[in-house]
């Protein structure tokens, strides 16, 4: 190996680093380290002139290793790798010392000493770095989108319109997601289905979209640009090719169950489409409810089907797909408010969740759009309780972002449909979006009663004649500073938006991280809002966190753009920091074989040695640490490099290894 000639570049990051680290002292220290031929500092090393300083020094001093002491490698490693590559240095000969996120920003004392230790470690490691070559592999030019709510629909149309293949997987019998359950959308009061169904129809008929409803993601393998996906198609028991969507089977079916789409407020048949505008307009037979599956008789649907589309012998099917990118648009669940027993949900009649209320308002809903109490009469007064489980340390600390606005929308809808008094019980009104404040003003003018306070209780225990036969909402009015009791006929709860119940399994399948709130975590909260830690997998819509329709649509298009930019480039570089077996040292013990989570290690029976596939290996290094013969090298994280780093970190500490 050639003699290392290392350059150390120390970034001030304005005052972010220089404010708490003595740059001059650190630079002096670095210049004295073994292998270092140049140590320089600059105000912003990531800036154009900062990068130029590196490039010029590489050329002038014939540097063959570069250490940048700046922010986290997760911020600018790519920037500096590109910079050194431009002057002919292999990008793997760059080492970052993270003296900002894990030093200057987090300590009151000892920052300069720690920065010195981190740079010492980086220099020690840089001495041993080796050039690695990245391999290019072709990209499959298609995209898988998981979830066909408004986010998935928008992303699918964006990608399909650019002439790329999209596989859109939805677990429900129809696309549409949460948005199609809504009646109106705030603050414009657009009819939700009026604006969504044209997009749904476009998805259904798009030649570049392969729609897979009533289907679920089963397994994902592969890597960026080359994912292999297994999708489980549940049997519909109806042949989609033959079905013409006439709906006679639904009409004739004598068996009923609670409608999931109507949040259990209405009924649906055993053979059903969730709602009239379903896409595809092909019903499914629910095996649990259909009597034929239980007793072997009935077959009413089959008797009346004019096209002979009923297919009792359909079976679950697994379809294998190859895609270059994956967009996760799995949406959200509504928090089940039953655990907040003080609000009486599930115990008291006429206490509804917001989604239940949406269905009641909808013309296609269980009441045909009429607002009625359980006894069929219209409500005289309605109380809307905000922040149910949201902004509550016991449940969801975060704000669900849409509740204030849809609660205002409800006031308007209730006013349109009834003469009821409406009470908004809020903690803070958060009307931050375009047209939101104006909507709030409009509703204030429409005579809505706003009461500021967190509701203590909803009860049916009357203490006065006025309260008899009503629900009573007990709360402190924090603006008046006294307790109030509000008699109401109907109470609408605005529960938190929470991650899907199976978000955990999805995260495991796609190797996604989840935030403290349980939603999928984006790669960077500001600058990479749709990318994830798994390259080639993007997350959009409420799967990433609560948001309204416009934000969801914008983010979905962002995800589509990211996926397109990936699949359109034709090829992608594969990480070079993989593991490799030294055949001379390998004893053939096979310990590594069982450890590899990606089955990247095979055993060559002839040579009796293990072999690692460059393409399948993801560079975790679990086999490297396990090999008893030290025959496996983890490229870019070799034993020697890591040990050198440890020695560098501890160079200022006296070793205790003094035998007496």
């Amino acid at each position, binding site marked *: 190996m050639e003699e290392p000639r290392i350059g150390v570049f120390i970034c001030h990051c304005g005052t972010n680093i220089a404010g708490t680290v003595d740059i001059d002292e650190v630079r002096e220290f670095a210049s004295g380290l073994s292998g270092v031929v140049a140590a320089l500092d600059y105000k912003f090393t990531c800036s154009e002139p900062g990068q130029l300083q590196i490039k010029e020094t590489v050329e002038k001093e014939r540097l063959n290793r570069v250490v940048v002491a700046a922010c*986290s490698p997760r911020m600018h490693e790519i920037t500096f790798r590109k910079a050194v590559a431009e002057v002919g240095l292999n990008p793997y000969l760059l080492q970052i010392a993270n003296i900002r996120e894990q030093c200057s920003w987090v*300590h009151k*004392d000892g920052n300069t000493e*720690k920065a010195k230790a981190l740079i010492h470690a980086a220099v020690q490691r840089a001495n041993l770095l080796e050039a690695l070559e990245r391999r290019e592999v072709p990209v499959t030019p298609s995209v898988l989108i998981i979830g066909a709510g408004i986010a998935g629909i928008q992303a699918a149309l964006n990608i399909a319109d650019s002439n790329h293949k999209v596989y859109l997987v939805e677990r429900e019998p129809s696309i549409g997601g949460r948005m199609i359950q809504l009646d109106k959308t705030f603050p414009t009061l657009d009819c939700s289905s009026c604006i969504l169904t044209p997009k749904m129809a476009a998805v259904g008929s798009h030649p570049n979209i392969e729609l897979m409803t009533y289907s679920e993601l089963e397994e994902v393998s592969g890597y960026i640009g080359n994912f292999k996906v297994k999708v489980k198609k549940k049997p519909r028991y109806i042949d989609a090719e033959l079905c013409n969507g006439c709906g006679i089977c639904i009409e004739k079916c004598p068996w009923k169950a609670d409608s999931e789409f109507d949040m259990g407020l209405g009924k649906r048949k055993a053979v059903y489409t969730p709602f009239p505008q379903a896409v595809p307009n092909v019903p499914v037979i629910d095996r649990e409810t259909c009597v034929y599956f239980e007793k072997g008789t009935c077959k009413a649907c089959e008797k009346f089907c004019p096209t002979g589309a009923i297919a009792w012998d359909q079976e679950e099917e697994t379809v294998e797909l190859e895609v270059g990118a994956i967009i996760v648009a799995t949406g959200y669940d509504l928090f089940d408010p039953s655990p907040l027993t003080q609000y009486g949900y599930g115990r008291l009649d006429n206490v509804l969740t917001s989604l239940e209320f949406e269905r009641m308002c909808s013309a296609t809903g269980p009441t045909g759009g009429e607002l009625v109490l359980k006894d069929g009469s219209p409500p005289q007064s309605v109380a809307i309780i905000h922040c149910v489980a949201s902004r509550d340390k016991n449940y969801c600390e975060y704000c669900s972002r849409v509740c204030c606005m849809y609660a205002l929308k409800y006031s308007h809808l209730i006013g349109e449909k009834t003469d009821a008094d409406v009470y908004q019980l809020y903690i803070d009104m958060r009307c931050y979006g375009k047209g939101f404040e104006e909507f709030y003003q409009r509703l204030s003018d429409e005579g809505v009663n706003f009461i500021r306070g967190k509701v203590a209780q909803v009860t049916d225990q009357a203490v006065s004649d006025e309260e008899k036969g009503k629900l009573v909402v007990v709360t402190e009015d924090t603006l008046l500073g006294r307790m109030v009791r509000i008699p109401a006929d109907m109470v609408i709860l605005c529960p938190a938006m929470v991650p899907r119940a199976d978000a955990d399994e999805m995260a495991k399948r796609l190797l996604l991280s989840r935030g403290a709130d349980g939603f999928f975590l984006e790669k960077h909260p500001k600058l990479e809002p749709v990318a994830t*830690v798994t390259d080639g997998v993007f997350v959009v819509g409420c799967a990433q966190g609560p948001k309204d329709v416009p934000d969801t649509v914008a983010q979905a298009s962002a995800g589509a753009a990211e996926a397109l930019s990936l699949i359109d480039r034709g090829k992608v570089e594969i990480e070079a920091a993989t593991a490799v077996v030294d055949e001379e040292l390998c004893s053939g013990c096979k310990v590594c074989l069982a450890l590899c989570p990606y089955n990247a290690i095979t055993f060559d029976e002839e040579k009796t040695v293990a072999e690692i596939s460059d393409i399948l290996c993801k560079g975790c290094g679990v086999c490297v*640490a396990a090999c008893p013969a030290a025959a496996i090298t983890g490229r870019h994280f070799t034993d020697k490099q890591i040990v050198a780093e*440890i020695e560098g970190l*501890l160079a200022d500490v006296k070793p*205790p290894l003094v035998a007496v």
Partner: protein
Amino acid sequence: MVSGNHEPTIIGFLCNWCAYQGADLAGTSRMQYPANVRPVRVMCTGRIDPTFILKAFAEGADGVLVGGCHPGDCHYLEGNYKTIRRITMVRRMLEQFGIEPERFRLEWVSASEGARWAKICKEMTEQVKALGPLQWWENVREA
């Protein structure tokens, strides 16, 4: 026995995907903690060879902290489970070397747990400071 104002040095092995990101988040959020923990980034805690831990103590570290993804959340599916198994062995080895068990910690820190990382670093520093400098030779001789 030296104790009291000894500032311990602790080596932290952090996995790239969870603990290192969590530590970065602590930085971005400007959460303050003592400067005693010095990080080594590895792709996965599964890469941590037990000899790295011993090497850190041999080179003068007063404590070693390993930070990885929560069980079930490993970016490489199950690397952290392998870490759990290896660490069980490491703990026994440390004991035999006369290194107090309080000088070693395995912690799970997710990418969103900046506050947790800061808290662990504070606790670990206090814990190791209380033990004073590592004098494993003395410990072995006494045993």
